[in-house]
């Protein structure tokens, strides 16, 4: 069927029926791309058609003359979300192509270049968490990983989920509690994005700090699901991607989470036991790195680059605090000492488990410049042959 006749058929359908029909056409196009050995030109043509169908018939962003249409009203948006949810909840696996087809459709629907569609994705994922729509959550996890968990798109998605949805749920919600076991990849990537946001976004003196309820649920996730932080590393996406797709390197939430725990004492006055708990859970999880990533060459758990950045941020903040104060390294402010001790504990366990990857030289340089608290000295002397 030619592209024009496809559009002709779809144009005769009312909204939201046209969405449903369009989705199945798009899927057919994607499946054809995956399983048929078609020529490249043909492939590009089909991809273009899929994109056109998405724009005109799924999101209804343009009309038949490719002119911008006014946005869908709330009711229409609801109907659209419903059709999309149902499509991912029920259609996958029954059609040819399985995960790959589903993910291809999903990634075509929400390419990272379309930040505008992110708002809709936030709502879609919120509904997915709520309705236990595991296929949709898995697709979101794959999408985040492919475009990068710390990319603008993923960050926006994570922020949107927190603001629109998580803050509205009670802390003890069973749905949130079970999320790591039901959708580990999504939870892990979501966690990585979240960890990136807090203590980074906001101003330098007044960074964004996670709410206690968010902190609690995350601590619970990490402490009760030892493998959670490794989900992105251990999931094999090779067969879940569109034709010719290459799995992108995974980022674990470790550095981000440790960043919270290290920086928290420097920004938060009161002694917050939640950070101690999260810190411990993250350490315990990191200690198991050899279990989840047995091969040393693939143990890309803690990025040296990210770690260097964390040490730098931490050091700068401490220098700011200690500016003009004559102080001996053995008699630091307790909260500074706590921050440095947490950092040192993290570094020690990371070195011990051989979990740091990438070029470490810069990291070691930075580390040597930090105030030499005793634990740091012990750690560095322990690993002096590499530092």
């Amino acid at each position, binding site marked *: 069927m030619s592209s024009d006749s496809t559009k002709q058929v779809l144009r005769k359908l009312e909204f939201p029926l046209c969405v449903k029909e369009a989705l199945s056409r798009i899927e057919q196009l994607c499946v054809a791309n995956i399983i048929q050995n078609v020529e490249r030109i043909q492939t590009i043509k089909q991809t273009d058609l899929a994109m056109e169908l998405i724009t005109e018939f799924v999101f209804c962003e343009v009309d038949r003359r490719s002119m911008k249409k006014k946005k869908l009203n709330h009711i229409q948006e609801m109907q659209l979300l419903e059709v999309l949810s149902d499509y991912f909840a029920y259609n996958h696996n029954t059609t040819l192509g399985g995960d790959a087809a589903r993910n291809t459709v999903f990634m075509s629907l929400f390419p990272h270049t379309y930040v505008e569609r992110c708002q809709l994705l936030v709502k879609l994922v919120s509904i997915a968490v709520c309705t236990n729509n595991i296929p949709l959550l898995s697709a979101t996890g794959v999408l985040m990983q492919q475009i990068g968990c710390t990319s603008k798109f993923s960050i926006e998605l994570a922020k949107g989920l927190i603001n629109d949805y998580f803050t509205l749920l009670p802390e003890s919600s069973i749905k949130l509690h079970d999320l790591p076991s039901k959708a580990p990849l999504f939870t892990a990537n979501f966690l990585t994005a979240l960890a990136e946001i807090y203590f980074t976004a906001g101003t330098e003196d007044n960074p964004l700090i996670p709410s206690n309820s968010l902190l609690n649920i995350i601590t619970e996730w990490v402490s009760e699901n030892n493998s959670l932080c490794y989900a992105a590393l251990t999931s094999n996406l090779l067969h879940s991607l569109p034709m010719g797709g290459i799995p992108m390197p995974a980022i674990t939430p470790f550095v981000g989470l440790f960043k919270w725990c290290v920086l928290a004492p420097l920004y938060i006055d009161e*002694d917050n*036991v939640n950070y*101690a*708990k999260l*810190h*411990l859970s993250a*350490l*315990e999880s990191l*200690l198991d790195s050899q279990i989840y990533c047995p091969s040393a060459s693939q143990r890309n758990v803690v990025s040296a680059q990210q770690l260097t950045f964390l040490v730098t941020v931490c050091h700068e903040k401490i220098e700011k605090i200690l500016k003009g104060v004559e102080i001996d390294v*053995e*008699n*630091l*402010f*307790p*909260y500074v*000492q706590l921050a440095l001790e*947490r950092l*040192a*504990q993290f570094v*020690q*366990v990371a070195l*011990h*488990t051989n979990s740091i990857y990438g070029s470490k030289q810069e990291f070691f340089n930075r580390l040597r410049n930090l105030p030499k608290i*005793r*634990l740091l000295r*012990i*750690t560095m002397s*322990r690993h002096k042959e590499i530092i």
Partner: protein
Amino acid sequence: MPHFIADNKTCEISDEEYLVLRAKETSDKNPYQSKAWTLTARTLFPQNFDVQFEAYLVEKNNGNSKEAAKFFGELFQSFIAENGLWNEMYALTNALRSENPCADDIFLKNMFSYIPSIIQRDILTLTAERSEDTMEHCRLMLLLFKKFPQNTSQLIIRLVDTLMTAEKHSPGPSVINCYRKTLVCEVLPLLLQTSGELPPKQLYRFLHKSIEFYLAYLMSKSSMVENVLENEKNDISWELLFNLIKMFGNKLDWELCSIFIPPCTVRMNILDQTKAIRQLIYCLTVLFAYCLYQYNIALYPILENKHSVVLVEAFVVKEADEILPKRLKIDPTSQDSNLPTLTGSEGTGDIIKHFNFALKCWNMLNSTDVYQKGKYSNKFSPYLFNGNSWILDFITDVALYRGKFEEFQFNIQSKANNIRSNLQKLTYNFVTKNYHMLGECCIPIIRQIESLSLLGNQYPSLTEYNTTRHLHYLAIMKIPVLQYVVKLLIIMYWQLLPNFTSSEIDRIFGYVLILCQLSWPSEKRIVFDILTKIRNKRSFTCNLFFKYVVNVEILEEFMHMYANEQEIIKLDLIGTGQSHSQKRMFTRGVDKEEREDFRQLMKEQVCRQEPLYTLIIQFLLEEDRHISLK
């Protein structure tokens, strides 16, 4: 103002100590922080015991049994030489055995359950091997066997040897010691359950040790036994012994095994048929000891409100010649009809059954067949016979039962002056027809009756018909004892009647009349005999009459005698001790007033309310000097 951490004091300590210190410092305030320290320390110094042990302690202090178990298992595998670990191991094994665990013990018990079972096993084995105290070693080994019953039989045999050696070297010859108790009550049952074939010689040796211990324990009443096994739960019982013998019996293919399934007495007859002398002796010894024990419990109940019991000679009436029983030659193998009849007062329970059963075992043990071949029986006799009053009580009663009165007398003569032995002396004199001794024997008993707290009831009839002899288990309570004593006094007076002078005879008639009231109407015939005798001699003086005679029928007879035969019989029923103003009453030549008085006195007697037994006891106590005829 921010606070500064005084780090000065930590300068001199080693890195390892510093890390442990930091973990300890924070453990109360912030357990997460503390755990983060121990976790880091463990990665820094995996070979340092203190660091690894601190990680365990932090979990222990936080009550995380699962995590603590993980660390404990690691410690056990890497630091077995450390004293600190051993202290914890002892605490752990103590907790496992504790019957009243404290909070710490409960934690350790819980923790133990999370330790992988291979390590559990090693922990128990190693702790047991290291303990210098034999008992400690045994308890740990037993714990090990209970938790890991597989493939333990070799270890159990080793433990058996250890215990037997320990017993050999322990002070004191008594078989009641903690080693023997553990061996017999805990280790041997386990061995019999778990092991396969064992050489019979060894089994007999163990069996012997077991019986020795149980008999010594169960057959001794002294508190000495309790003291030796202090702090132990004393759950030693006959049932346990029976079970153990059953287990031995199964191993030894004993045909007599089933006798120990309670109630043992039911299958008694299988003993008669067996040819297996060896097992017969073991079984008989235990059964005899058991019956002896039961018999003794029945004789001297330990429960409060329970009376003791004594076997006495009771009374027989033969239809043909209604006189007192003739002693018969007793042959133990003779038919039941020639054996004495046994009866028991109310509340004597199964005593007759126990006696018969014990006697049967006793006869078998002493039969020539068993006795000659039974080179084993004498090994246990010390526990049955030595320093044991139980066997003495039993053979005393057997002597009475078999009519071996000299042996009976020999056994009771040395006994203390208590109501029980006094009753036995009384019964001896009665059965050997020393009638003139009966009164003397009764006096101490009468005085002792008062001190008995339980009242009891009269036994319907102490007299049996158509039997050679009649033995009765008399409940030592006020009324049953009184009933027996009164009956014997009546017999004494009756038997000795021809010996009394005419001046004494009225007093004796009075006594008999008074005594006959107790078991009325069983002595009615004697009363009518007396009335006939009074009529024949035409006079009767009794100054105790109005004090003690209250029986309506007797009163009516005398009333009748007074009213209708006053012309012939001279009746004097008013005590001489009465006040002077009262006139002596004669039936002859009295005035109407006096007759009215007599009627009035009779009426008053009928109306008296006090219980008969108190009246009789009062009579016996007040007249004790006269009733003994001495």
